[in-house]
């Protein structure tokens, strides 16, 4: 019964979405307040029914109801409870349900919290959001029904890929989706503004919190995904330029550009048309990502051609939403008034360069992601575009961006004094140059790009810190005065500082762990000793240990440095009998200076006897990546909490709200 209630919940959500996609839009056009308001309750209703459906599916997974095909295919009665829960969104159907749930979540968010947004804009936005809902709900119901029944039920389920049986991954898709799908509301705002024909500074302000929320989640999702890949896949890398990673990274790049261009629209009324275009393109890239991941195109172009039903449906949605919104843009954008003028060297100019570089970087990743797919479709050749391509194309685009990032916050709006700014930044420049030179000296054979990137990271860090210090007059005024200034500084300002520092910290991690990584693979028998990056490791032995639904070979490695014992590492090789597959559980010695990372694999052959394949890696500074990512997300959260984002028209019925005490 419960799966059927879930199914009925989906049907009700679809019916409400159909109503919401027409009535509020008509209400906004005719000035009918009741119709406009209906968007708020239907958006909430959609969220309620999709949450019910999601809950019903989760229930089916939790109690292992094998009358639901989805549960049969993606779960197993022996699976640990946490992963039964996570399996809810592990499958194609379940992840689509999560997709639409998050879509509804953002719609309901605007319905409930968007009280400062004009009624007409809110109604139109929610209608556009409902169009997307209708598209994806019909896609789910008619091609990928999560509640399809299987009667009579089989005795037990077929398990989930044990690789996916991991806390990091269990949390990864929901977070990634919140970001990915969150950009839908920004898209809806953009399309609503185009329909309304009014984009101004106020519009940019209304959209900002939603862009920030989506961007934060996407940042957290990407960071978590790379963290998972780092410690679960057993290859010691944190980013593989894999298409699945790229499709989440592209919306992030463009979303970052959008976040910045919207500032210009908000402060100077400029870049309107560009901001709208970015909002459309960011979500289009999210849709493209959904298409690429969900159509099976990645497994093989051939597989897609054999069973194209799902892919064709998403492709249709993609065509309608991207084609439709861009056509609307082409019709309406020329009518937008230009904003304030600015000189090339100015805050606006800096943000323009930021936008251009981010857009070019996105294009580069898009090319690298799609080219192999097109090539396979046309010639049948399978190639993979990997790190060499991106190191040669993406990284050089990002380096000037980092340079401008250090500079940008110092520039004033309209016209800035570049010479003056550079004079103020001599410290940052000098430190960066010194650091780069020291590195050059330390690793004479070191890669030029890495040294340059590291220097730029230092530059960004020092310049950002200096900008913040100058705002609160740190060391130039009494400390209590600085503290008072820091308290009064808008939260968004702290947020920007923290996020920019976060990126600098990330860069240290990126460069350190890729350019100065030490890697060693040996055939090891009990007693084998290896040296990596000053650590001595000895393989004590390998024993077989049972797990909840697997058995594992666990190696014991003794780690010491300079004869002093540090700790034991226990990398595992797990065997899941039901799923007939194996995973590698690496063991990591974490420290801020770098991670010592060990993994083992079975003896290569029978003849190799007791020799295990032991892989030991030393990744300097790698934890700076997650630390920096955390700072990025925290910076976003600080900005989101800025009181200015909640400024609204005073309620006529009540006394006007007092603005907060003057800053």
């Amino acid at each position, binding site marked *: *019964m419960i*799966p*059927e209630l879930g*199914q*009925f*919940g989906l*049907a*009700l959500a*679809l*019916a*409400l979405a159909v*109503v919401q996609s027409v*009535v509020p839009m008509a*209400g906004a056009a005719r*000035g*009918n*307040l*009741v*119709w*406009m*308001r*209906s968007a708020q*309750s*239907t958006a*909430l*209703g959609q969220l*309620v029914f999709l949450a019910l459906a999601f809950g019903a599916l989760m229930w089916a997974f939790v*109690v*292992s*109801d*094998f*009358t639901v095909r989805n549960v049969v295919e993606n779960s197993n*009665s022996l699976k640990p409870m946490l992963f039964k829960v996570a399996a809810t969104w592990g499958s194609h159907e379940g992840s689509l349900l999560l997709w639409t749930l998050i879509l509804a979540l953002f719609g309901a968010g605007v319905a409930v919290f968007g*009280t*400062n947004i*004009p*009624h*007409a*804009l809110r109604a139109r936005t929610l209608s556009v959001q409902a169009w997307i809902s209708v598209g994806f709900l019909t896609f789910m119901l*008619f091609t990928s*029904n999560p*509640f399809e*029944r299987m*009667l009579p*039920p089989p*005795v*037990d389920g077929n398990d989930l890929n044990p690789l996916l049986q991991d806390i990091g991954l269990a949390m990864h898709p929901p977070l990634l989706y919140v970001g990915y799908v969150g950009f839908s509301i920004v898209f809806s705002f953009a399309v609503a503004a185009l329909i309304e024909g009014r984009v*101004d*500074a*106020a519009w940019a302000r209304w959209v900002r919190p939603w862009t920030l929320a989506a961007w934060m989640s996407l940042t957290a999702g990407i960071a978590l995904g790379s963290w998972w890949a780092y410690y679960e896949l057993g290859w010691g890398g944190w980013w593989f330029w894999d298409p699945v990673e790229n499709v989440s990274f592209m919306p992030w790049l463009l979303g970052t550009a959008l976040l910045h261009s919207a500032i210009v629209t908000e*402060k100077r009324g400029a870049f309107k048309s560009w901001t709208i275009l970015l909002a459309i393109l960011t979500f289009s890239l999210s849709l493209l990502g959904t298409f690429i991941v969900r159509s099976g195109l990645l497994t093989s172009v051939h597989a897609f051609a054999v069973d194209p039903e799902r892919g064709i449906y998403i492709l249709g949605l993609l065509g309608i939403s991207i084609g439709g919104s861009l056509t609307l843009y082409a019709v309406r954008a020329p009518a937008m008034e230009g904003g304030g003028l600015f000189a090339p060297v100015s805050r606006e100019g800096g943000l323009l360069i930021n936008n251009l570089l981010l857009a070019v970087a996105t294009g580069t990743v898009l090319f690298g992601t799609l080219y192999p797919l097109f090539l396979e479709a046309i010639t049948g050749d399978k190639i993979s575009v990997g790190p060499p391509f991106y190191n040669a194309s993406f990284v050089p685009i990002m380096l000037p961006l980092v340079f401008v990032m250090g500079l940008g916050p110092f520039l004033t*709006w*309209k016209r800035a004094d570049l010479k003056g700014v550079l004079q103020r930044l001599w410290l940052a420049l000098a430190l960066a140059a010194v650091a780069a030179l020291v590195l050059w000296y330390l690793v004479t054979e070191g890669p030029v790009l890495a040294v340059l990137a590291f220097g730029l990271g230092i530059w960004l860090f020092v310049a950002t810190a200096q900008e913040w210090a100058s705002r609160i007059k740190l060391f130039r005024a009494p400390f209590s005065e600085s503290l008072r200034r820091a308290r*009064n500084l*808008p939260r968004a300002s702290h947020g920007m500082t923290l996020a920019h520092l976060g990126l600098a910290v990330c860069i240290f991690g990126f460069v350190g762990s890729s350019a100065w990584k030490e890697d060693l693979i040996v055939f090891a028998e009990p007693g084998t000793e290896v040296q990596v990056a000053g650590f001595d490791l000895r393989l004590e032995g390998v024993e077989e240990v049972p797990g909840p639904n697997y058995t594992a070979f666990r190696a014991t490695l003794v780690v010491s440095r300079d004869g002093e014992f540090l700790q034991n590492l226990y990398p595992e090789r797990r065997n899941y009998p039901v799923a007939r597959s194996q995973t590698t559980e690496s063991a990591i010695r974490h420290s801020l200076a770098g991670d010592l990372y060990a993994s083992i694999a079975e003896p290569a052959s029978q003849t190799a006897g007791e020799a295990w394949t032991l892989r030991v890696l030393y990744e300097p500074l790698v934890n700076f990546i997650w630390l920096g990512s955390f700072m990025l997300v925290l910076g976003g959260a600080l900005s989101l909490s800025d009181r200015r984002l909640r*400024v*609204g*028209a005073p309620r006529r019925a009540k006394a006007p709200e007092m603005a907060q005490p*003057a*800053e």
Partner: protein
Amino acid sequence: MTFWIPAAAMALLAVLMILLPLWRRDGAAVDHREGALAIFVDQLKEIDAERARGLISPAEAEAAQLEIKRRMLAVGRLKGRGPARTGGAAMLMALAVLVPLLAGGVYVMTGAPGAESLPFAERAEERADTREIVELTERLRERLTSDENGGPTEGWELLAQTYMRMGRFDAAAEALGRIVDREDAHSGHLTQWAEALIAANDGIITAQAGAAIDRALDMDVLNPAASYYKAQWLEQEGRSGEARELLVLRLRQADEAQPWMEVFLRQINRLGSETGAAPVALDDFVVTRGPSAEDVEAAQAMTAEERGDFIRSMVNRLAERLEDEPDDLDGWLQLGRAYGVLGEQARALQAYQAAEGLLEGLAANDPRREVVAAGLAEHGG
């Protein structure tokens, strides 16, 4: 039904969600002008604050404020809509009716009304049954392996069939592998073995399975399963044309319709669609069961005696077929009725008795139960 109560509650909630805006009818709409003005006023204050903190020069502050004021003027020029309209209740009420209907329609299309859920924990009995079958199977296996003479062939065959049903294809192939080289092994054993091997290899025909198929064909060229798998093998080798020919050839050798022919026809037509060959139907190969229009016409033109003979030959054909397919309940009923018409009480009774044995598992209100009971009573059962 318990489903309908929560489902009705959900539908009611959806209706309320549609009607909710009708409750609050205070006409206070935030329009773009007011919203934007509030933000610009805030921006002006912010610039004052920045100037006070010395972040921007007074001249810059003035220029920025001037710009914002210009924007305020521009927004102020926007035409207000005047008082917002609050009509349109009829539309929402109509939609409140339509939404549950639409949702119900979508649900009927996509859902499985009436299908109960069945949590794993509530299926202990079923699992116990499965365990029992597993235990019995293992006991049979032990008995067979411990038998000094290697165990009877039928025993291994039964064991293999059980394993096949359990999806343990490896074990089934292993069991059959023990008997295929015996004296009493027949073509069917070899095709069963091949089937198990193929299933164990995810549908790929290995060399071992291929050899088994060839041996099965050698032993009995008319074994349809052997021809079927041989055709699959040919197809796997990329020889689809030959595969199709083989299947067609085997159908030509048949003289009456058999259930396996449907599978052959599907394969032939699937292979044919790749090469562009015209589709074929069962009529192209054999006379389909039951009297055709010509038969009826011919029968009408016969004398009473000729007709009796003709009917008798049809009945014999049916009886023969039922020997091969004893599970065909409708066939037995047809046969019983035919014998009754021909006045052969004993045979009619036999046919109804055979049908009676197949009633188990039918619904209590299945009309065929009555037909059988009536037939048995009529012919003295």
